[in-house]
């Protein structure tokens, strides 16, 4: 072993599947002078990779997770370390059967085919050792397989070393990560100091500890996953190689069983959550097995024993089949279930690749390496972006509370709108008390409690009758209320007041402020003071990084307003654009200002009644903002709309919010104004207007032209992604975002069903639709359009198919429903000429 070098371009800390993947992919993309270090010995330094169960089910409701997993599988196959075994998720309940159908549907949307529903007898045929009487069916995915993650990691590391791009050192302990002027400068180890431009933390469950050394945060917690290996199983005595029988996931009891040589491995996510902190993890020297293999606690597994016995009595119930190995294995869990990837917002040059499981390792490494070297990754990683965390989400309390709550949902049936119960009421708007009084049903975004609908509007149900499009099926009624649609209809008739406190708000000021916002925004930002510009923010490849609103408050003063969920990532994006000479600054005002909006035909009357400022059509034009006086308050009013009606957003310092609400409320009462929840603001109002949202419609993978959002004139100033965007403008888009109506909601049982998003759009002969870039057509957003009495689906469709009136099939929970294109491109299906907004 040679001596640790004093200098490197990049130090990768960690030699698990992720660290090795990073070394390999950074080298592959042309970086040299990479130094990898690990505290433990090679090839198994003692992290989670060393005890992973190593199987891959390539199916997830998350598109991002599925894409990363598929890329990982591709790489494992390339290294020759993948064995395809097939896998079966079995259901013990009808609810689970529906969920399995939903999983197949998601898989189809993300391009994973071959899934099929099996009867208990068919499951038995594939896995003769199960008792088919305890299940009601299964879902067979033939492409499931097992990988050798240790071997893959070793191959990747050795490849980078042989290529002369990297050196690797075992048994090196990091003592400190040094930072100067907000930029990482190196790593101090027990064997010397390495100065470096980049430092990558790929240390799994130790990541928080390392990030802390640099003053950064990687909010994850080590958590126990229990498994035991029993054997030898007589039935497997002739098993060739490591694995040949399909992996079985017993979904309803949160367990899996897989043959492993002559043994059967039984794993569980059903036991009580057992959480640690990184400081709890022993060293290689003090650990009895390894630092991430804790002693098995049988009492936590007692019920699982019985469940395994029920499913596989001939093996598990065999007195001679004995426990060979059982551990409490440590894995990384995050508060929202997604990995933690990207440059830390606190320290430039310090990158996190954490909370990545075996099925995601190589794909994640490739994507993050692209991000580091090329500035962006091919696969959109926005749900995993480390910059997504708000301050309170970095607190240990939050991490532990959320993981504690979600651990048992690892194999759970998680509704797309399901809310966390733990650690709520962390961020309360000044209107919270008033909203509570009105029977608000709160959903959470970025810690903010936001009314999704108001029970006080229940009386509107009678008024609107069937126009609220009532739902009978339990699944679509869960986390939903017809009151949302009633609020929508009432807003369209009179007006609604909407709490928008969750907006992230930051001001950019200084001589270079214009240059900064110009660089970020697709749209022209060199506009008159008082203009409000809604603009996409693009990545280097011309794909979407965000969409947000920027107000020009003064020559050198811009206010960026963006959604709470994505706010922190946007803040980092803009912060990264600040010139180093200090000629522009960014100030986070999210917790300084509160926002409330009023929209509806009567919005003007309501406001005008309480202000002397002229709110008239000409005096206060759409897309402008100015300060108005409302009673004792000076209020920044901004005339824009995300719901398709006339109205304003009002910004006041947070302590004045309650006063503002009170005045608006009193005035509104005279005009039948109602409180309106985010159900309208985020879904029904938006969808009727065919407004796109970042995440569902707008992401790296799609262009501005495909989303139908190109402006007639291209701004002259440079902006990120301009070259790509110019190219996109010159080409016919491969795919075009369309708005579809569901033509018939009736299921095979005669019940009306309503899609919720992420369902595949199929041809009339039920074949998946793939564009020439290999992208599938699927429902990006779905929801009611109560004004039209329709259920809207948005979907990208290959441009040649994107013709109004064209008919398709949408697959939902295993059944097929006819749908057709209502509008191609961004034209609204409701009030296409925008008369209501411009009124």
């Amino acid at each position, binding site marked *: *072993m040679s001596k640790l070098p004093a200098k490197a371009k990049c130090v990768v800390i960690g030699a698990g599947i992720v660290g090795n993947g990073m070394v390999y992919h950074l080298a592959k993309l042309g970086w040299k002078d990479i130094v990898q270090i690990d505290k433990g*010995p*090679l*090839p*198994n330094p003692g992290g989670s990779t060393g005890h992973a169960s190593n199987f891959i089910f390539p199916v997830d409701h998350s598109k991002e997770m599925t894409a990363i997993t598929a890329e990982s599988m591709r790489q494992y196959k390339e290294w020759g370390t993948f064995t395809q075994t097939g896998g079966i998720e079995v259901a013990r309940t009808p609810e689970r059967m529906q969920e399995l159908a939903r999983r197949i549907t998601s898989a189809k949307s993300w391009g994973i085919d071959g899934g099929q529903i099996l009867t208990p007898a068919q499951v038995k045929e594939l896995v003769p050792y199960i008792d088919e009487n305890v299940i009601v069916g299964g879902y067979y995915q033939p492409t499931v397989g097992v990988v050798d993650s*240790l071997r893959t990691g070793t191959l990747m590391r050795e490849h980078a070393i042989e290529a002369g791009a990297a050196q690797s050192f*075992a*048994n090196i302990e990091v003592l400190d990560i040094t930072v100067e002027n907000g930029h990482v400068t190196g790593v101090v180890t027990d064997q010397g100091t390495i100065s470096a431009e980049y430092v990558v933390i790929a240390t799994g469950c130790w990541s928080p500890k390392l990030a802390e050394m640099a003053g950064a945060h990687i909010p994850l917690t080590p958590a126990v996953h229990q498994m035991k*290996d029993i*054997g030898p199983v007589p039935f497997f005595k002739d098993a060739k190689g490591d694995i040949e029988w399909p992996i079985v996931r017993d979904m309803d009891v949160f367990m899996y069983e897989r043959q492993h*040589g002559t*043994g059967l491995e039984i794993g569980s996510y059903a036991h009580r959550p057992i959480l640690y902190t990184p400081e709890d993890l022993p060293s*290689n*020297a003090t650990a*009895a*097995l*390894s630092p991430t293999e804790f002693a098995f606690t049988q009492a936590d597994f007692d019920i699982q024993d019985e469940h395994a016995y029920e499913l596989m009595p001939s093996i598990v119930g065999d007195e001679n089949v004995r426990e*060979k*190995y059982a551990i409490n294995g440590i894995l990384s869990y995050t508060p929202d279930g997604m990995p933690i990837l990207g440059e830390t917002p606190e320290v430039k040059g310090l990158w996190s690749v954490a909370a990545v499981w075996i099925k995601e390792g190589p794909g994640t490494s490739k994507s993050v390496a692209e991000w580091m070297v090329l500035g962006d990754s091919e696969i959109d990683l926005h749900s995993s972006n480390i910059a997504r965390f708000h301050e309170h989400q970095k607190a240990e309390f939050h991490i532990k509370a959320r993981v504690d709550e979600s651990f048992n949902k690892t194999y759970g049936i998680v509704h797309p709108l399901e809310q966390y119960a733990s650690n709520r009421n962390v961020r309360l708007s000044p209107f919270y008390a008033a909203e509570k009084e009105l029977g608000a049903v709160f959903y959470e975004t970025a810690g903010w409690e936001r009314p999704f609908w108001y029970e006080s509007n229940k009386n509107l149900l009678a008024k609107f009758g069937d126009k609220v499009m009532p739902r009978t099926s339990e699944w679509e009624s869960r986390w939903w209320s017809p009151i949302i649609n009633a609020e929508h209809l009432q807003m369209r008739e009179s007006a609604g007041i909407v709490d928008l406190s969750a907006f992230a708000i930051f001001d950019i000021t200084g001589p270079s402020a214009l240059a900064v916002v110009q660089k970020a925004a697709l749209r022209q930002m060199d506009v008159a003071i008082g203009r409000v510009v809604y603009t996409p923010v693009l990545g280097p490849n011309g794909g979407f990084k965000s969409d947000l609103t920027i107000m020009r408050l003064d020559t050198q003063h811009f206010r960026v307003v963006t959604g709470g969920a994505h706010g922190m990532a946007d803040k980092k994006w803009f912060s990264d654009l600040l010139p180093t000479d200090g000629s522009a600054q960014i100030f986070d005002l999210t917790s300084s200002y509160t926002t409330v909006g009023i929209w509806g035909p009567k919005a003007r009357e309501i406001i005008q009644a309480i202000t002397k400022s002229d709110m008239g059509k000409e005096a206060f034009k759409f897309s402008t903002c100015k300060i108005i006086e409302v009673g004792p308050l000076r209020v920044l009013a901004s005339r824009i709309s995300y719901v398709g009606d006339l109205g304003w957003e009002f910004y006041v310092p947070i302590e004045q919010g309650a006063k503002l609400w009170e005045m608006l409320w009193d005035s509104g009462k005279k005009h039948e104004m109602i409180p309106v929840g985010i159900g309208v603001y985020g879904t029904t109002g938006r969808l009727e207007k065919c407004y796109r949202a970042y995440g569902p419609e707008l992401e790296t993978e799609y262009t501005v032209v495909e989303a139908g959002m190109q402006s007639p004139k291209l701004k002259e100033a440079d902006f990120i992604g301009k070259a790509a965007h110019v190219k996109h403008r010159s080409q016919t888009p491969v795919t075009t975002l369309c708005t579809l109506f569901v033509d018939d909601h009736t299921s095979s049982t005669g019940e009306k069903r309503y899609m919720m998003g992420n369902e595949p759009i199929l041809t009339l002969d039920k074949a998946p639709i793939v564009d020439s870039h290999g992208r599938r057509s699927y429902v990006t957003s779905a929801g009611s359009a109560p004004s039209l009495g329709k259920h809207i689906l948005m979907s990208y469709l290959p441009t040649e198919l994107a013709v109004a009136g064209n008919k398709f099939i949408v697959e939902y929970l295993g059944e097929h429903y006819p749908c057709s294109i209502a509008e191609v491109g961004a034209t609204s299906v409701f009030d296409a000429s925008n008369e209501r907004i411009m009124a």
Partner: protein
Amino acid sequence: MILVLIDHDQSEIDPLSLRALTAARKLGHEIEAVAIGSDGAQLAAIVGEYGATKLHVAAHDAITDYTPMASGRALKDLVDKFKPVAVLAAGSPRGNEQLAHLAAFLDIPMAAECSEITLGSPHHVLRARWAGNLIESAHVHSELLVATLLSFSVEAESANSGVAIVLTFEPALEPADSIVKVLSRDSGQSKAGLTLSDAKVIVSGGRGVGGPDGFGNLEELADLLGGTVGCSRVVTSSGWRPHAEQVGQTGTKVAPDLYIAAGISGAMQHIAGMKNSKTIVVINTDPEAPILRYADYAIIGDLHQVIPALTSAIRQAKG
């Protein structure tokens, strides 16, 4: 006066007893030795040389070979008669056992495996625990100290003194005292669990071997050296090798002439099972691995490269 139990096997003295005599001498009291069985009288010269002025020999018809409870009774008789300050013995299985009988007869404490003794009230000892990894500082609350001495804490040193006076006595045995004794012996191997225990060479693998396949190389090397394969606990708990091959506190304790530890970091319970090997060679990527502290020789490197290279080099050397 301090009594030191001299353990012997049909008049062949256990060398550890000489270490016990040496240690006892340092406590500043007159030393008298005890040997159980009439054939113990032959030890007068050697115990004398190591500092015992007298050798008490317990002779009784019932004591024909090792009879541990009878030893305890004989020691008790001497204690009753001569009131020594301490009764000591080597911390060997036999030493511990016989003194435990004495302590049980007297219902007084016993401190096993002591590395240091300070007589007093209470007596103070340092004793080894956790397979020698921990040292306990303890008080012994008893007028008479019954203690055994950590086998290797003291080297035997001759006192260059003369032959001890032999004082033969007949202990007042009760019938129960001699029920358990060596009835017969044979020099062959036991039928149980001795494959590892008997091997002169053991090539042992740990987590670093990476998986069951990696043991092929170790087997080849072991064959070549006329030895057998062992492994660490993590290997058996991972199901890579059978439990019977596990070396350690929870497996088999071994003391071969040559112990090659490959890819074993050295968990305490493994060390406990192999540290008495004559020569220990470590092959490990980690120069800081705890096992190196117990090794005579080490190669810092990847066993997957070193073992095959070693195998072929040995082949060559053997011609």
